[in-house]
Protein backbone atom coordinates (compact mmCIF):
# COMPACT_ATOMS: atom_id res chain seq x y z
CA UNK A 1 0.00 0.00 0.00
CA UNK A 2 1.32 3.39 -0.99
CA UNK A 3 -0.53 6.40 0.25
CA UNK A 4 0.33 9.68 -1.32
CA UNK A 5 -1.03 12.94 -0.07
CA UNK A 6 -0.80 14.58 -3.43
CA UNK A 7 -2.13 12.10 -5.97
CA UNK A 8 -3.80 14.22 -8.59
CA UNK A 9 -5.78 11.24 -9.83
CA UNK A 10 -6.96 10.62 -13.32
CA UNK A 11 -6.30 14.14 -14.42
CA UNK A 12 -2.78 13.72 -15.64
CA UNK A 13 -1.38 11.91 -18.59
CA UNK A 14 -4.71 11.33 -20.25
CA UNK A 15 -5.72 13.22 -23.36
CA UNK A 16 -7.51 16.40 -22.43
CA UNK A 17 -9.85 16.15 -25.36
CA UNK A 18 -12.93 15.03 -23.47
CA UNK A 19 -15.03 18.12 -24.01
CA UNK A 20 -13.47 19.06 -27.32
CA UNK A 21 -15.24 18.09 -30.52
CA UNK A 22 -14.63 14.49 -31.52
CA UNK A 23 -13.57 14.26 -35.13
CA UNK A 24 -15.62 11.89 -37.23
CA UNK A 25 -15.29 10.95 -40.87
CA UNK A 26 -18.34 10.83 -43.10
CA UNK A 27 -19.00 7.33 -44.45
CA UNK A 28 -22.26 7.71 -46.35
CA UNK A 29 -24.61 10.47 -47.47
CA UNK A 30 -28.27 9.67 -48.14
CA UNK A 31 -30.74 12.07 -49.69
CA UNK A 32 -34.05 11.61 -47.87
CA UNK A 33 -36.06 14.28 -49.71
CA UNK A 34 -35.28 17.30 -51.86
CA UNK A 35 -34.39 19.34 -48.79
CA UNK A 36 -33.29 16.70 -46.32
CA UNK A 37 -30.12 14.61 -46.24
CA UNK A 38 -28.74 12.06 -43.79
CA UNK A 39 -25.01 12.05 -43.15
CA UNK A 40 -23.51 8.90 -41.58
CA UNK A 41 -20.15 8.87 -39.84
CA UNK A 42 -17.64 6.35 -38.64
CA UNK A 43 -18.53 6.47 -34.98
CA UNK A 44 -21.58 5.66 -32.90
CA UNK A 45 -22.44 7.95 -30.01
CA UNK A 46 -24.00 6.27 -27.02
CA UNK A 47 -27.06 8.40 -26.48
CA UNK A 48 -30.61 8.49 -25.24
CA UNK A 49 -33.24 8.98 -27.90
CA UNK A 50 -33.91 12.70 -27.99
CA UNK A 51 -30.42 13.87 -27.13
CA UNK A 52 -28.58 16.07 -29.59
CA UNK A 53 -25.04 16.85 -30.62
CA UNK A 54 -23.29 20.05 -31.64
CA UNK A 55 -21.99 19.58 -35.17
CA UNK A 56 -18.92 21.55 -36.16
CA UNK A 57 -18.74 22.32 -39.85
CA UNK A 58 -15.19 23.60 -39.92
CA UNK A 59 -14.89 27.11 -41.32
CA UNK A 60 -18.61 27.80 -41.05
CA UNK A 61 -20.32 27.22 -37.73
CA UNK A 62 -21.33 24.72 -35.11
CA UNK A 63 -25.02 23.83 -34.95
CA UNK A 64 -27.27 21.55 -32.91
CA UNK A 65 -28.60 18.40 -34.54
CA UNK A 66 -30.49 15.42 -33.23
CA UNK A 67 -28.83 12.05 -33.73
CA UNK A 68 -31.24 10.39 -36.15
CA UNK A 69 -29.16 7.24 -35.77
CA UNK A 70 -26.40 6.68 -33.24
CA UNK A 71 -23.99 7.41 -36.08
CA UNK A 72 -25.90 9.88 -38.23
CA UNK A 73 -27.59 13.24 -38.40
CA UNK A 74 -30.41 14.17 -40.73
CA UNK A 75 -30.21 17.69 -42.01
CA UNK A 76 -32.76 20.02 -43.45
CA UNK A 77 -31.06 22.66 -45.54
CA UNK A 78 -31.89 26.11 -44.22
CA UNK A 79 -28.75 28.23 -44.18
CA UNK A 80 -24.95 28.32 -44.36
CA UNK A 81 -23.98 25.41 -42.16
CA UNK A 82 -26.76 23.09 -43.26
CA UNK A 83 -26.02 23.88 -46.91
CA UNK A 84 -22.40 22.89 -46.42
CA UNK A 85 -23.44 19.80 -44.49
CA UNK A 86 -25.78 18.40 -47.13
CA UNK A 87 -23.08 18.92 -49.75
CA UNK A 88 -20.48 16.91 -47.88
CA UNK A 89 -18.93 13.76 -49.27
CA UNK A 90 -17.73 10.54 -47.68
CA UNK A 91 -14.21 11.04 -46.36
CA UNK A 92 -14.84 14.58 -45.17
CA UNK A 93 -14.69 15.33 -41.49
CA UNK A 94 -17.00 16.82 -38.88
CA UNK A 95 -16.48 17.69 -35.24
CA UNK A 96 -19.05 16.39 -32.81
CA UNK A 97 -19.60 17.62 -29.24
CA UNK A 98 -22.05 15.77 -27.09
CA UNK A 99 -24.45 14.07 -26.89
CA UNK A 100 -26.11 16.70 -24.77
CA UNK A 101 -29.44 17.26 -23.10
CA UNK A 102 -31.94 14.90 -21.62
CA UNK A 103 -33.83 12.33 -23.66
CA UNK A 104 -37.34 11.01 -24.03
CA UNK A 105 -38.72 8.81 -21.31
CA UNK A 106 -40.31 6.08 -23.36
CA UNK A 107 -42.59 3.35 -22.10
CA UNK A 108 -45.66 1.42 -23.10
CA UNK A 109 -47.62 2.22 -26.20
CA UNK A 110 -46.15 5.25 -27.90
CA UNK A 111 -47.67 7.91 -30.10
CA UNK A 112 -45.06 9.82 -32.12
CA UNK A 113 -46.10 13.05 -33.85
CA UNK A 114 -43.70 14.77 -36.21
CA UNK A 115 -43.76 17.70 -38.55
CA UNK A 116 -41.30 18.15 -41.42
CA UNK A 117 -37.67 17.45 -40.50
CA UNK A 118 -38.94 16.89 -36.95
CA UNK A 119 -39.27 13.26 -37.97
CA UNK A 120 -35.47 12.90 -37.63
CA UNK A 121 -35.23 13.18 -33.82
CA UNK A 122 -38.13 10.71 -33.54
CA UNK A 123 -36.75 8.17 -36.01
CA UNK A 124 -35.16 6.03 -33.34
CA UNK A 125 -38.45 5.98 -31.42
CA UNK A 126 -40.09 4.36 -34.44
CA UNK A 127 -37.21 2.00 -35.14
CA UNK A 128 -36.28 0.92 -31.62
CA UNK A 129 -39.53 0.92 -29.61
CA UNK A 130 -41.94 -2.01 -29.84
CA UNK A 131 -45.38 -0.41 -30.07
CA UNK A 132 -45.46 2.89 -31.90
CA UNK A 133 -48.06 4.78 -33.86
CA UNK A 134 -46.36 7.43 -35.97
CA UNK A 135 -48.21 10.51 -37.17
CA UNK A 136 -46.13 12.30 -39.75
CA UNK A 137 -46.82 15.62 -41.40
CA UNK A 138 -45.14 17.43 -44.27
CA UNK A 139 -45.99 20.13 -46.72
CA UNK A 140 -46.09 17.70 -49.61
CA UNK A 141 -45.56 13.99 -50.27
CA UNK A 142 -42.00 14.62 -51.52
CA UNK A 143 -41.00 15.97 -48.15
CA UNK A 144 -42.01 12.98 -46.11
CA UNK A 145 -38.85 11.46 -44.70
CA UNK A 146 -38.17 7.98 -43.35
CA UNK A 147 -41.69 7.08 -44.37
CA UNK A 148 -40.91 3.72 -45.95
CA UNK A 149 -38.51 2.62 -43.25
CA UNK A 150 -40.94 3.50 -40.48
CA UNK A 151 -43.88 1.85 -42.21
CA UNK A 152 -42.01 -1.45 -41.90
CA UNK A 153 -41.71 -1.02 -38.15
CA UNK A 154 -44.85 0.73 -37.03
CA UNK A 155 -48.29 2.07 -37.77
CA UNK A 156 -47.58 5.21 -39.79
CA UNK A 157 -50.26 7.77 -40.67
CA UNK A 158 -49.51 10.68 -42.92
CA UNK A 159 -50.79 14.21 -43.35
CA UNK A 160 -49.70 16.66 -46.06
CA UNK A 161 -50.57 20.32 -46.30
CA UNK A 162 -51.32 19.95 -50.00
CA UNK A 163 -53.03 16.58 -49.74
CA UNK A 164 -50.46 14.91 -52.01
CA UNK A 165 -50.31 12.01 -49.53
CA UNK A 166 -52.49 10.83 -46.65
CA UNK A 167 -54.70 13.22 -44.77
CA UNK A 168 -55.08 16.65 -46.38
CA UNK A 169 -54.13 19.13 -43.72
CA UNK A 170 -51.92 19.60 -40.70
CA UNK A 171 -50.62 16.65 -38.70
CA UNK A 172 -52.60 17.83 -35.67
CA UNK A 173 -55.67 16.97 -37.70
CA UNK A 174 -54.66 13.30 -37.63
CA UNK A 175 -55.21 13.32 -33.90
CA UNK A 176 -58.99 13.34 -34.42
CA UNK A 177 -58.84 9.71 -35.47
CA UNK A 178 -56.62 8.69 -32.54
CA UNK A 179 -57.87 7.50 -29.19
CA UNK A 180 -55.34 9.11 -26.93
CA UNK A 181 -56.27 7.02 -23.90
CA UNK A 182 -54.67 4.01 -25.56
CA UNK A 183 -51.21 5.57 -25.36
CA UNK A 184 -48.79 5.72 -22.46
CA UNK A 185 -46.31 8.11 -24.05
CA UNK A 186 -46.79 10.84 -26.62
CA UNK A 187 -43.67 12.35 -28.22
CA UNK A 188 -43.73 15.38 -30.48
CA UNK A 189 -41.19 17.14 -32.69
CA UNK A 190 -41.67 19.72 -35.41
CA UNK A 191 -41.79 23.44 -36.07
CA UNK A 192 -42.99 25.61 -33.19
CA UNK A 193 -46.48 26.39 -34.62
CA UNK A 194 -47.12 22.71 -35.26
CA UNK A 195 -46.01 21.81 -31.74
CA UNK A 196 -48.18 24.53 -30.22
CA UNK A 197 -51.21 23.27 -32.09
CA UNK A 198 -50.54 19.68 -31.04
CA UNK A 199 -50.11 20.96 -27.49
CA UNK A 200 -53.52 22.66 -27.67
CA UNK A 201 -55.21 19.49 -28.87
CA UNK A 202 -53.57 17.38 -26.19
CA UNK A 203 -54.52 19.94 -23.57
CA UNK A 204 -58.14 19.92 -24.65
CA UNK A 205 -58.15 16.15 -24.60
CA UNK A 206 -56.45 16.02 -21.15
CA UNK A 207 -53.42 14.13 -22.39
CA UNK A 208 -50.73 16.66 -21.63
CA UNK A 209 -49.14 14.82 -18.74
CA UNK A 210 -48.05 11.93 -20.91
CA UNK A 211 -46.69 14.18 -23.67
CA UNK A 212 -43.08 15.15 -24.31
CA UNK A 213 -42.03 17.83 -26.77
CA UNK A 214 -38.62 18.15 -28.37
CA UNK A 215 -37.85 21.88 -28.40
CA UNK A 216 -35.55 23.84 -30.66
CA UNK A 217 -33.94 27.11 -29.72
CA UNK A 218 -30.86 28.96 -30.85
CA UNK A 219 -27.88 27.24 -29.23
CA UNK A 220 -24.29 28.27 -28.81
CA UNK A 221 -22.81 26.30 -25.96
CA UNK A 222 -25.04 23.24 -25.68
CA UNK A 223 -24.19 22.79 -22.01
CA UNK A 224 -26.39 25.25 -20.14
CA UNK A 225 -23.98 28.11 -19.70
CA UNK A 226 -24.33 30.79 -22.35
CA UNK A 227 -28.05 31.37 -21.99
CA UNK A 228 -28.83 31.67 -25.68
CA UNK A 229 -31.40 28.85 -25.62
CA UNK A 230 -33.31 29.94 -22.53
CA UNK A 231 -37.09 29.91 -22.64
CA UNK A 232 -39.64 32.08 -20.91
CA UNK A 233 -41.07 32.14 -18.34
CA UNK A 234 -38.94 29.74 -16.30
CA UNK A 235 -35.54 30.48 -17.79
CA UNK A 236 -34.98 26.82 -18.53
CA UNK A 237 -32.20 25.95 -20.97
CA UNK A 238 -33.40 23.92 -23.92
CA UNK A 239 -29.87 22.49 -24.25
CA UNK A 240 -29.63 21.22 -20.73
CA UNK A 241 -33.02 21.16 -19.04
CA UNK A 242 -34.35 19.93 -22.41
CA UNK A 243 -34.51 19.58 -25.32
CA UNK A 244 -37.35 17.33 -24.17
CA UNK A 245 -40.01 19.03 -22.05
CA UNK A 246 -43.27 17.68 -20.77
CA UNK A 247 -46.29 19.25 -22.39
CA UNK A 248 -47.47 20.36 -18.98
CA UNK A 249 -44.42 22.52 -18.44
CA UNK A 250 -44.85 24.16 -21.84
CA UNK A 251 -48.46 25.26 -21.47
CA UNK A 252 -47.65 28.78 -20.34
CA UNK A 253 -44.39 29.01 -22.18
CA UNK A 254 -43.22 31.02 -25.16
CA UNK A 255 -43.73 27.99 -27.43
CA UNK A 256 -45.49 29.08 -30.57
CA UNK A 257 -45.41 32.73 -29.51
CA UNK A 258 -41.81 33.81 -29.92
CA UNK A 259 -38.21 32.74 -29.52
CA UNK A 260 -34.92 34.58 -29.22
CA UNK A 261 -32.35 34.79 -32.00
CA UNK A 262 -28.56 34.68 -31.77
CA UNK A 263 -28.46 38.23 -30.42
CA UNK A 264 -31.10 37.48 -27.81
CA UNK A 265 -33.70 39.51 -29.68
CA UNK A 266 -37.22 38.16 -29.62
CA UNK A 267 -38.56 36.93 -32.95
CA UNK A 268 -41.93 35.54 -33.92
Amino acid at each position, binding site marked *: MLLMGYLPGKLWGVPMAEGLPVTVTITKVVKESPGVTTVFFDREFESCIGQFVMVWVEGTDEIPMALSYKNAITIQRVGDATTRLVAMKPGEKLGIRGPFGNGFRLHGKILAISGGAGTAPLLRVGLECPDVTFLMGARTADELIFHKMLTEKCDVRVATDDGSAGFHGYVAGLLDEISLDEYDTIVVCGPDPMMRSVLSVLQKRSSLEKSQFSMHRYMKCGVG*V*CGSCCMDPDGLCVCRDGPIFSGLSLQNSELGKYHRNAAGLKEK
Partner: protein
Amino acid sequence: MITLSPEPVMMGGVSARNHLVLAAGVLGTCASSLSRMLRSGAGAVVTKSIGPEPRFGHPGPCLVVLEDGLMNAMGLPNPSKQFQDELSALSGEPVIVSIFGGNPEQFHEVAGWFADKAQAFELNVSCPHASGFGAQIGTNPDIVKACTEAVKEWKKPAWVKLTPNVTDITSIGKAAEEGGADAIVAINTVRAMRISTGMRRPVLGNKYGGLSGKAIFPIAVRCVYELYEACSIPIIGCGGVSCAEDVIEMMMAGAQGVEIGSAIVRDPDIFSHICKDLYAPDGISPREIVGCAHG
Protein backbone atom coordinates in the same frame (compact mmCIF):
# COMPACT_ATOMS: atom_id res chain seq x y z
CA MET B 1 -14.35 25.00 7.39
CA ILE B 2 -15.09 28.60 8.15
CA THR B 3 -18.73 29.64 7.83
CA LEU B 4 -20.08 33.15 7.58
CA SER B 5 -22.92 34.70 9.49
CA PRO B 6 -25.80 35.63 7.19
CA GLU B 7 -25.71 39.41 7.28
CA PRO B 8 -27.06 41.96 4.84
CA VAL B 9 -24.41 42.43 2.17
CA MET B 10 -23.45 45.71 0.58
CA MET B 11 -20.66 45.52 -1.96
CA GLY B 12 -19.48 48.26 -4.25
CA GLY B 13 -22.74 50.15 -3.80
CA VAL B 14 -24.95 47.15 -4.51
CA SER B 15 -27.12 45.66 -1.85
CA ALA B 16 -27.03 41.94 -2.50
CA ARG B 17 -28.77 39.03 -0.78
CA ASN B 18 -25.50 37.24 -0.16
CA HIS B 19 -21.89 37.29 -1.32
CA LEU B 20 -22.45 35.23 -4.46
CA VAL B 21 -23.07 37.02 -7.72
CA LEU B 22 -23.84 35.46 -11.08
CA ALA B 23 -20.98 36.41 -13.43
CA ALA B 24 -21.63 38.27 -16.68
CA GLY B 25 -22.50 36.27 -19.76
CA VAL B 26 -23.66 33.15 -18.00
CA LEU B 27 -27.42 32.60 -18.38
CA GLY B 28 -27.60 36.37 -18.52
CA THR B 29 -29.43 37.23 -21.74
CA CYS B 30 -33.02 37.01 -20.60
CA ALA B 31 -34.97 38.11 -17.58
CA SER B 32 -36.29 34.61 -17.05
CA SER B 33 -32.89 32.97 -16.67
CA LEU B 34 -31.62 35.81 -14.50
CA SER B 35 -34.63 35.42 -12.19
CA ARG B 36 -34.04 31.73 -12.12
CA MET B 37 -30.52 32.29 -10.80
CA LEU B 38 -31.84 34.71 -8.17
CA ARG B 39 -34.47 32.18 -7.14
CA SER B 40 -31.85 29.48 -6.87
CA GLY B 41 -29.80 31.57 -4.46
CA ALA B 42 -27.64 34.12 -6.26
CA GLY B 43 -27.23 37.21 -4.10
CA ALA B 44 -27.21 39.39 -7.19
CA VAL B 45 -26.86 38.84 -10.92
CA VAL B 46 -24.82 40.47 -13.65
CA THR B 47 -26.42 40.49 -17.08
CA LYS B 48 -24.84 39.50 -20.36
CA SER B 49 -22.67 42.37 -21.58
CA ILE B 50 -24.78 44.81 -23.57
CA GLY B 51 -23.22 46.95 -26.28
CA PRO B 52 -24.04 49.80 -28.63
CA GLU B 53 -25.39 47.54 -31.43
CA PRO B 54 -27.01 44.12 -31.46
CA ARG B 55 -24.40 41.42 -32.13
CA PHE B 56 -24.90 37.83 -33.15
CA GLY B 57 -21.58 36.62 -31.81
CA HIS B 58 -18.78 34.63 -33.33
CA PRO B 59 -19.36 31.57 -35.49
CA GLY B 60 -19.30 28.31 -33.56
CA PRO B 61 -17.87 26.42 -31.86
CA CYS B 62 -18.27 29.10 -29.21
CA LEU B 63 -17.51 27.05 -26.13
CA VAL B 64 -15.83 23.83 -25.16
CA VAL B 65 -15.80 22.13 -21.81
CA LEU B 66 -12.38 21.11 -20.51
CA GLU B 67 -11.73 18.89 -17.55
CA ASP B 68 -10.87 21.84 -15.38
CA GLY B 69 -12.76 24.66 -16.97
CA LEU B 70 -14.41 26.15 -19.99
CA MET B 71 -13.02 27.92 -22.97
CA ASN B 72 -15.34 30.28 -24.82
CA ALA B 73 -15.42 32.86 -27.55
CA MET B 74 -19.06 33.86 -27.63
CA GLY B 75 -18.25 37.15 -29.32
CA LEU B 76 -20.45 39.33 -27.14
CA PRO B 77 -23.82 38.44 -28.70
CA ASN B 78 -26.40 40.80 -27.24
CA PRO B 79 -29.69 42.52 -28.08
CA SER B 80 -28.32 45.99 -27.36
CA LYS B 81 -30.91 48.63 -26.47
CA GLN B 82 -33.81 46.17 -26.64
CA PHE B 83 -32.45 44.60 -23.48
CA GLN B 84 -34.47 47.32 -21.75
CA ASP B 85 -37.54 45.09 -22.16
CA GLU B 86 -35.90 42.21 -20.35
CA LEU B 87 -34.77 44.49 -17.55
CA SER B 88 -38.27 45.77 -16.92
CA ALA B 89 -39.27 42.32 -15.79
CA LEU B 90 -36.55 42.45 -13.15
CA SER B 91 -37.32 45.73 -11.47
CA GLY B 92 -36.51 45.79 -7.79
CA GLU B 93 -34.13 42.83 -8.11
CA PRO B 94 -30.37 43.09 -7.48
CA VAL B 95 -29.37 43.29 -11.12
CA ILE B 96 -26.08 44.69 -12.33
CA VAL B 97 -26.04 45.51 -16.03
CA SER B 98 -22.81 44.62 -17.78
CA ILE B 99 -22.01 47.01 -20.58
CA PHE B 100 -19.34 47.37 -23.21
CA GLY B 101 -18.35 49.83 -25.87
CA GLY B 102 -15.42 50.77 -28.05
CA ASN B 103 -14.83 54.13 -26.38
CA PRO B 104 -16.02 56.28 -23.47
CA GLU B 105 -18.86 57.78 -25.53
CA GLN B 106 -20.30 54.37 -26.31
CA PHE B 107 -20.02 53.31 -22.68
CA HIS B 108 -21.87 56.47 -21.74
CA GLU B 109 -24.60 55.89 -24.29
CA VAL B 110 -25.22 52.26 -23.41
CA ALA B 111 -25.27 53.00 -19.69
CA GLY B 112 -27.83 55.71 -20.33
CA TRP B 113 -30.32 53.18 -21.71
CA PHE B 114 -30.38 51.37 -18.40
CA ALA B 115 -29.65 54.15 -15.93
CA ASP B 116 -33.13 54.08 -14.43
CA LYS B 117 -33.39 50.30 -14.19
CA ALA B 118 -29.98 48.95 -13.20
CA GLN B 119 -28.83 48.74 -9.59
CA ALA B 120 -25.32 49.20 -10.89
CA PHE B 121 -23.17 48.86 -13.97
CA GLU B 122 -20.31 46.51 -14.62
CA LEU B 123 -17.90 47.75 -17.27
CA ASN B 124 -16.62 44.95 -19.42
CA VAL B 125 -13.19 46.18 -20.42
CA SER B 126 -11.83 42.70 -20.37
CA CYS B 127 -13.41 40.25 -22.81
CA PRO B 128 -10.35 38.72 -24.50
CA HIS B 129 -11.88 37.83 -27.85
CA ALA B 130 -13.90 40.67 -29.40
CA SER B 131 -11.97 43.04 -31.57
CA GLY B 132 -12.34 46.69 -30.72
CA PHE B 133 -13.94 45.90 -27.39
CA GLY B 134 -13.22 44.37 -24.04
CA ALA B 135 -9.58 43.63 -23.35
CA GLN B 136 -8.51 45.58 -26.41
CA ILE B 137 -9.36 48.72 -24.50
CA GLY B 138 -9.00 47.29 -21.00
CA THR B 139 -5.23 47.04 -21.28
CA ASN B 140 -4.90 50.80 -21.49
CA PRO B 141 -5.23 52.56 -18.12
CA ASP B 142 -6.17 55.90 -19.66
CA ILE B 143 -9.08 54.48 -21.62
CA VAL B 144 -10.25 52.48 -18.63
CA LYS B 145 -10.28 55.61 -16.53
CA ALA B 146 -12.14 57.59 -19.19
CA CYS B 147 -14.76 54.86 -19.69
CA THR B 148 -15.33 54.66 -15.96
CA GLU B 149 -15.78 58.39 -15.73
CA ALA B 150 -18.21 58.36 -18.63
CA VAL B 151 -20.38 55.73 -16.96
CA LYS B 152 -20.18 57.42 -13.58
CA GLU B 153 -21.95 60.45 -15.07
CA TRP B 154 -25.14 58.46 -14.60
CA LYS B 155 -24.56 58.50 -10.82
CA LYS B 156 -24.92 54.78 -10.43
CA PRO B 157 -22.49 52.38 -8.78
CA ALA B 158 -19.96 51.24 -11.39
CA TRP B 159 -17.93 48.05 -11.15
CA VAL B 160 -15.02 47.70 -13.52
CA LYS B 161 -14.14 44.19 -14.61
CA LEU B 162 -10.50 43.62 -15.40
CA THR B 163 -8.62 41.34 -17.71
CA PRO B 164 -5.73 39.26 -16.32
CA ASN B 165 -4.05 39.38 -19.74
CA VAL B 166 -1.84 42.30 -18.84
CA THR B 167 1.66 42.69 -17.51
CA ASP B 168 0.43 44.56 -14.44
CA ILE B 169 -3.21 44.34 -13.44
CA THR B 170 -2.77 46.84 -10.63
CA SER B 171 -2.13 49.69 -13.06
CA ILE B 172 -5.54 49.03 -14.61
CA GLY B 173 -7.17 48.67 -11.21
CA LYS B 174 -5.77 52.00 -10.13
CA ALA B 175 -7.05 53.62 -13.33
CA ALA B 176 -10.55 52.34 -12.59
CA GLU B 177 -10.29 53.64 -9.06
CA GLU B 178 -9.20 57.06 -10.33
CA GLY B 179 -12.11 57.04 -12.75
CA GLY B 180 -14.47 56.72 -9.82
CA ALA B 181 -15.24 53.01 -9.88
CA ASP B 182 -17.14 51.67 -6.88
CA ALA B 183 -15.59 48.24 -7.17
CA ILE B 184 -13.18 46.19 -9.22
CA VAL B 185 -14.17 42.78 -10.50
CA ALA B 186 -11.22 40.47 -11.07
CA ILE B 187 -10.97 38.61 -13.34
CA ASN B 188 -12.40 38.04 -16.78
CA THR B 189 -11.22 35.01 -18.74
CA VAL B 190 -7.60 34.23 -19.59
CA ARG B 191 -6.74 34.32 -23.28
CA ALA B 192 -6.38 30.75 -24.49
CA MET B 193 -6.66 28.35 -27.37
CA ARG B 194 -7.16 24.65 -27.96
CA ILE B 195 -6.64 22.92 -31.25
CA SER B 196 -8.59 19.99 -32.57
CA THR B 197 -5.92 17.54 -33.68
CA GLY B 198 -8.54 15.74 -35.74
CA MET B 199 -9.57 18.85 -37.67
CA ARG B 200 -6.12 20.45 -37.49
CA ARG B 201 -7.74 23.75 -36.59
CA PRO B 202 -8.36 25.79 -33.45
CA VAL B 203 -11.56 24.46 -31.92
CA LEU B 204 -13.20 27.84 -31.46
CA GLY B 205 -14.78 29.61 -34.40
CA ASN B 206 -12.91 32.71 -33.31
CA LYS B 207 -9.69 30.69 -32.87
CA TYR B 208 -8.79 32.51 -29.65
CA GLY B 209 -11.00 32.34 -26.61
CA GLY B 210 -11.08 32.85 -22.89
CA LEU B 211 -10.31 30.24 -20.28
CA SER B 212 -12.52 30.18 -17.20
CA GLY B 213 -13.35 27.82 -14.39
CA LYS B 214 -11.21 25.88 -12.01
CA ALA B 215 -8.05 26.19 -14.12
CA ILE B 216 -7.86 29.94 -13.55
CA PHE B 217 -8.71 30.05 -9.85
CA PRO B 218 -5.06 30.42 -8.74
CA ILE B 219 -4.63 33.23 -11.28
CA ALA B 220 -7.77 34.98 -10.05
CA VAL B 221 -6.72 34.70 -6.41
CA ARG B 222 -3.36 36.20 -7.32
CA CYS B 223 -5.00 39.14 -9.12
CA VAL B 224 -7.36 39.83 -6.22
CA TYR B 225 -4.43 39.74 -3.82
CA GLU B 226 -2.37 42.12 -5.97
CA LEU B 227 -5.28 44.54 -6.39
CA TYR B 228 -6.02 44.50 -2.67
CA GLU B 229 -2.48 45.69 -2.05
CA ALA B 230 -2.70 48.42 -4.69
CA CYS B 231 -6.24 49.79 -4.52
CA SER B 232 -8.61 50.86 -1.81
CA ILE B 233 -12.01 50.31 -3.44
CA PRO B 234 -13.82 46.99 -2.90
CA ILE B 235 -12.85 43.99 -5.00
CA ILE B 236 -15.20 41.29 -6.25
CA GLY B 237 -13.35 38.03 -6.92
CA CYS B 238 -14.19 36.11 -10.06
CA GLY B 239 -12.65 33.12 -11.78
CA GLY B 240 -13.01 29.46 -10.98
CA VAL B 241 -15.02 29.74 -7.80
CA SER B 242 -16.94 26.50 -7.43
CA CYS B 243 -17.44 25.80 -3.74
CA ALA B 244 -17.77 27.57 -0.39
CA GLU B 245 -14.11 27.00 0.42
CA ASP B 246 -13.17 28.91 -2.74
CA VAL B 247 -15.33 31.82 -1.63
CA ILE B 248 -13.52 31.98 1.70
CA GLU B 249 -10.16 31.83 -0.09
CA MET B 250 -11.13 34.69 -2.41
CA MET B 251 -12.27 36.74 0.56
CA MET B 252 -9.03 36.14 2.40
CA ALA B 253 -7.21 37.37 -0.70
CA GLY B 254 -9.21 40.57 -0.41
CA ALA B 255 -12.56 40.08 -2.13
CA GLN B 256 -15.75 41.41 -0.57
CA GLY B 257 -17.79 38.96 -2.61
CA VAL B 258 -17.43 36.68 -5.58
CA GLU B 259 -18.89 36.16 -9.00
CA ILE B 260 -19.53 32.66 -10.25
CA GLY B 261 -19.91 31.65 -13.88
CA SER B 262 -18.45 28.46 -15.23
CA ALA B 263 -19.28 26.34 -12.22
CA ILE B 264 -22.89 26.42 -13.45
CA VAL B 265 -21.87 23.85 -16.05
CA ARG B 266 -21.39 21.25 -13.40
CA ASP B 267 -24.21 22.29 -11.12
CA PRO B 268 -26.99 24.64 -12.21
CA ASP B 269 -27.96 24.91 -8.56
CA ILE B 270 -24.50 25.97 -7.51
CA PHE B 271 -25.72 29.09 -5.72
CA SER B 272 -28.02 27.30 -3.34
CA HIS B 273 -25.43 24.60 -2.74
CA ILE B 274 -22.68 27.06 -1.92
CA CYS B 275 -25.01 29.08 0.32
CA LYS B 276 -25.80 25.96 2.30
CA ASP B 277 -22.11 25.36 3.00
CA LEU B 278 -21.08 28.99 3.37
CA TYR B 279 -23.58 30.42 5.83
CA ALA B 280 -24.40 29.34 9.33
CA PRO B 281 -26.10 31.16 12.20
CA ASP B 282 -22.93 30.84 14.27
CA GLY B 283 -20.68 31.85 11.37
CA ILE B 284 -18.13 34.61 11.67
CA SER B 285 -18.48 38.06 10.23
CA PRO B 286 -17.11 38.39 6.70
CA ARG B 287 -15.28 41.51 7.85
CA GLU B 288 -13.07 39.27 9.91
CA ILE B 289 -11.65 37.51 6.89
CA VAL B 290 -11.73 39.91 3.94
CA GLY B 291 -8.06 40.49 3.15
CA CYS B 292 -6.84 38.62 6.21
CA ALA B 293 -4.23 36.70 4.18
CA HIS B 294 -2.29 39.93 3.84
CA GLY B 295 -1.26 39.52 7.48
